[in-house]
């Protein structure tokens, strides 16, 4: 009879209330997301005279230079995804099937990629694998070499490694969260019927974790497709250029917004296809969420004598090291005085410089200000949209949800390009103002608030709302006194996410900043560009401090994401 489906027919807000609620968020998104996006679309689909034309787009798609870029973009993303899956699967298995000391820590570490800015990964990578990095120096002093033996930087390998190291915790996180909910009894039953080893995995386990695997793969693929700072710095040249980097170059260096728009269009189409795949996979994996994680797990501690146990232990150590290494490298390096390796002096010189004012302190102040404003904007925006999405059922509400999540699939480079293009025709331009950066950050951050908040709103049992309603709570007080308090920790998580995303954001900031509006990540990028690594690491350490605060809050408050 579908009686539960009818549950909130009368208690939920009526259509008029929904419209009023949606008014502000929709207006904001129209003005600061869809309008700039549309402007990029129009730019890509018109000729220099402003008439509709597929000419520019078509000329891109036959130009071998751009075709190579498109091919390289998709290819590196695919390889990076594959590598991330291979690295992440054992971790997902261990977290799902075993208990061990430090599991809590490892689990917390899988949150890191969601809050660690990519510029830190870049910096850590340069310092660790670079020609003058820790690894090479160690090998040189070990073997008495005069030349660095490993030349990883500025190559495809560097991009792939950085992407895999950055993203494999995402795989661990998403896959293990489904895997642990699959009761081992299905595997035990299969084993009793004679299946074992790879066959058991292939026939029984894989089909069950497949939705999570697909959704993790699609998400990592999107991340790598849209990856910007890593490719920009670690690719190190035109040979390893992706769509994102090329759009950035066209917009900021060649000042060719027309070609940039057309290329951005191509990139957007590719990433949207994969965003769609991700959303589909997500819907499938949420199916399995009702199963419980109540099975007793074997303890890893008891297996350490065996080869297998030792292998597991090594993997976990490796995993922790890979996640933590870039961060540790950055922090450690920031305390040096000179970048020579012969005599190293511990010094707080760079921190003194940052605190003494000037552009460095301004970058810190700007970043904090932008992050706080982004948090203040994206929290109500995301909460309202999540609430409407979770509480109302109307024709097209699914579509609305997809439309609201669109910014995840649109790169912030394209967004920045849109901001540069769109507001030029208007009487007031927002480019060059602090709120342009805040609005761009808000558009990037609010889908994460939606994700966390809507998962929680949906989990609130309808009988709770009905109970409150029968006790005299109208729609508004129902929200204020019941749903908001119940979603509190999710909203804290969402706010921390918004803060962390904004403070570490580099793509849109790089498109929109000027000297006055410089942020920490942009400053780090410029310091790397001038080979001032100690300064970059000091700024990086400050940035990580802020991200760490966000991380702590997210970790404490919980909430579902990823």
């Amino acid at each position, binding site marked *: *009879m*579908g*009686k539960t489906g*009818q*549950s*909130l*027919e*009368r*208690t939920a807000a009526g259509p008029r209330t929904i419209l009023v609620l949606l008014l502000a968020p929709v207006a904001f998104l129209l003005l600061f997301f869809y309008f700039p996006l549309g402007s990029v679309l129009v730019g890509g689909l018109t000729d220099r005279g402003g008439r509709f034309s597929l000419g520019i787009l078509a000329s891109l798609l036959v130009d071998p230079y751009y075709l190579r870029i498109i091919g390289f973009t998709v290819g590196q993303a695919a390889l990076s995804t594959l590598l991330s899956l291979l690295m992440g699967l054992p971790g997902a298995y261990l977290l799902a099937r075993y208990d061990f000391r430090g599991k809590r820590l490892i689990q917390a570490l899988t949150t890191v990629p969601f809050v660690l800015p990519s510029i830190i990964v870049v910096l850590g990578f340069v310092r660790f694998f670079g020609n003058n990095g820790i690894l090479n120096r160690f090998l040189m002093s070990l073997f008495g070499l005069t030349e660095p033996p490993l030349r990883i930087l500025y190559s495809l390998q560097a991009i792939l490694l950085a992407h895999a190291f950055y993203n494999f915790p995402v795989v661990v996180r998403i896959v293990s969260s489904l895997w642990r909910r699959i009761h081992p009894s299905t595997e035990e039953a299969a084993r009793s019927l004679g299946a074992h080893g790879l066959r058991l995995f292939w026939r029984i386990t894989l089909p069950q974790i497949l939705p999570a695997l697909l959704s993790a793969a699609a998400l990592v693929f999107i991340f790598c497709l849209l990856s910007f700072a890593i490719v920009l710095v670690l690719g190190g040249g035109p040979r390893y250029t992706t769509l994102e980097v090329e759009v950035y170059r066209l917009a900021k260096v060649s000042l060719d917004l027309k070609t940039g728009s057309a290329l951005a269009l191509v990139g957007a189409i590719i990433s949207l296809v994969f965003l769609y795949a991700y959303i589909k996979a997500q819907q499938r994996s949420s199916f399995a969420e009702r199963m419980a994680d109540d099975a007793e797990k074997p303890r890893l501690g008891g297996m350490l004598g065996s080869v297998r146990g030792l292998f597991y232990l090594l993997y976990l150590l490796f995993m922790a090291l890979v996640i933590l290494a870039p961060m540790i490298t950055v922090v450690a390096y920031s305390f040096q005085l000179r970048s020579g390796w012969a005599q190293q002096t511990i010094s707080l010189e760079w921190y003194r410089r940052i605190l003494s004012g000037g552009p460095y302190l301004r970058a810190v102040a700007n970043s904090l200000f932008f992050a706080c404003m982004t948090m203040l904007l994206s929290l109500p925006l995301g909460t309202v949209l999540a609430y409407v999405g979770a509480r109302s059922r109307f024709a097209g509400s699914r579509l609305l949800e997809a439309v609201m999540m669109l910014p995840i699939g649109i790169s912030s480079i394209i967004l920045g390009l849109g901001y540069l293009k769109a507001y030029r025709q208007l009487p007031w331009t927002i480019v060059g103002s602090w709120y342009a950066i805040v609005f761009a950050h808000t558009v990037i951050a609010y889908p994460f608030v939606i994700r966390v908040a809507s998962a929680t709103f949906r989990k609130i*049992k309808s*009988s*709770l709302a*009905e*109970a*409150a*309603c*029968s*006790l*005299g*709570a*109208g729609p508004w*007080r*129902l929200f204020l*006194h*019941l749903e908001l*308090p*119940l979603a*509190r920790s999710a909203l804290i998580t969402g706010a921390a996410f918004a803060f962390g995303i904004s403070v570490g954001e580099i793509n849109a900031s790089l498109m929109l900043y000027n000297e006055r509006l410089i942020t920490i990540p942009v400053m780090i990028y410029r310091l790397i560009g001038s080979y001032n690594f100690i300064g970059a690491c000091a700024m990086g350490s400050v940035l990580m401090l802020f991200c760490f605060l966000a991380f702590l809050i997210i970790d404490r408050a919980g909430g579902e994401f990823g």
Partner: protein
Amino acid sequence: MGLQIRGIEKIYPDFRLELDFRVRQGELLILLGPSGCGKTTTLRLIAGFIGPDSGTLAMDGSRIDNLPAHRRRIGIVFQDYALFPHLNVWDNIGFGLRMQHWSPGESRQRIEELLHLVSLQGYAKRKVTRLSGGEQQRIALARALAPQPRLLLLDEPLSALDAKLRKGLRIEIRRIQRELGITTLYVTHDQEEALVLGDRIAVMREGHIEQIDTPERIYNRPANLFVGTFLGQANLLSGRLVRRFSSPDGEMAAVQTAVGTLQARWPADPDSPTQTQHFPVELQIGREVIAFFRPEHCSLDRRPSGNTRSPNRISGRVRRKEYLGSHQLIEVEAEGEHLILDLSQQQSLPDSGLLRFSVDPVQICLFPAAKS
């Protein structure tokens, strides 16, 4: 006064709910029926969580169907308790008072009163998630009653509890309901609960009420076969009406069945309007009917077999015995019909062999056979 439900209709693609009944002032009315019959939907319609397609609801003479749920002043106890997990016991009970703008002093007094009523003094500061199922249920009841609702709705409130706790709590719910004299509608699919608790019982099937009456009459004088077989055990014998006559017990009818001719009082219950409604009083000789009687209305007959003057004697072979402590169930096969007898433990019986028993004519009900 009380709650008046007039011509309420709610239409779903595969289901149709039609309601027309009254909950009298201060009574506890049970809504009983199999799952999927529309009990809970009825409750939700009254609470205002869903709207009817037509019809009206009136509370103490004034209409409430045009009020939103939060203005109806109806207390509800949910099957899953639905306690607010972010509030403690005190704030859960006080939630409605806060929503309805009680003063802090009055609220405090009222919450203490209710904690006392449900015997949970000293629980005020506890977290609700740490309470046992029974305790949670009492808090849910206290919370529903706190703002002095005009009507109390209970949706299978005991179904999540174990059997022993259930029995204790239903006595308590009954006591509290009597003490407050609050008009109450109680949904359950547990017939024992219905018989013990209800002032009256409404038996529902497929979206409408089949019969609404006191527990005794629902059990002993069911309006139709559905009600008769839904509550308790029953023996059914199909047959044909052959004769009508008068006796000291009143108007009687004779029915020809496989096990012989049975006499039954007809109409079985002249006071019941529902019964005549389903089966016209005019006796149609030759009509196919079903004779219905309860296992406990059978008694052993030890008189010699030749005595044909006593009516409704049936003899059959004992097939099975079920020992139930205070009583025993005997399955007897007579002329291919399987009948159940409910006898007291004192009556000793052979393990097998022939058994003679008789059925009290006053206790037999006649229903029209299903049209085929």
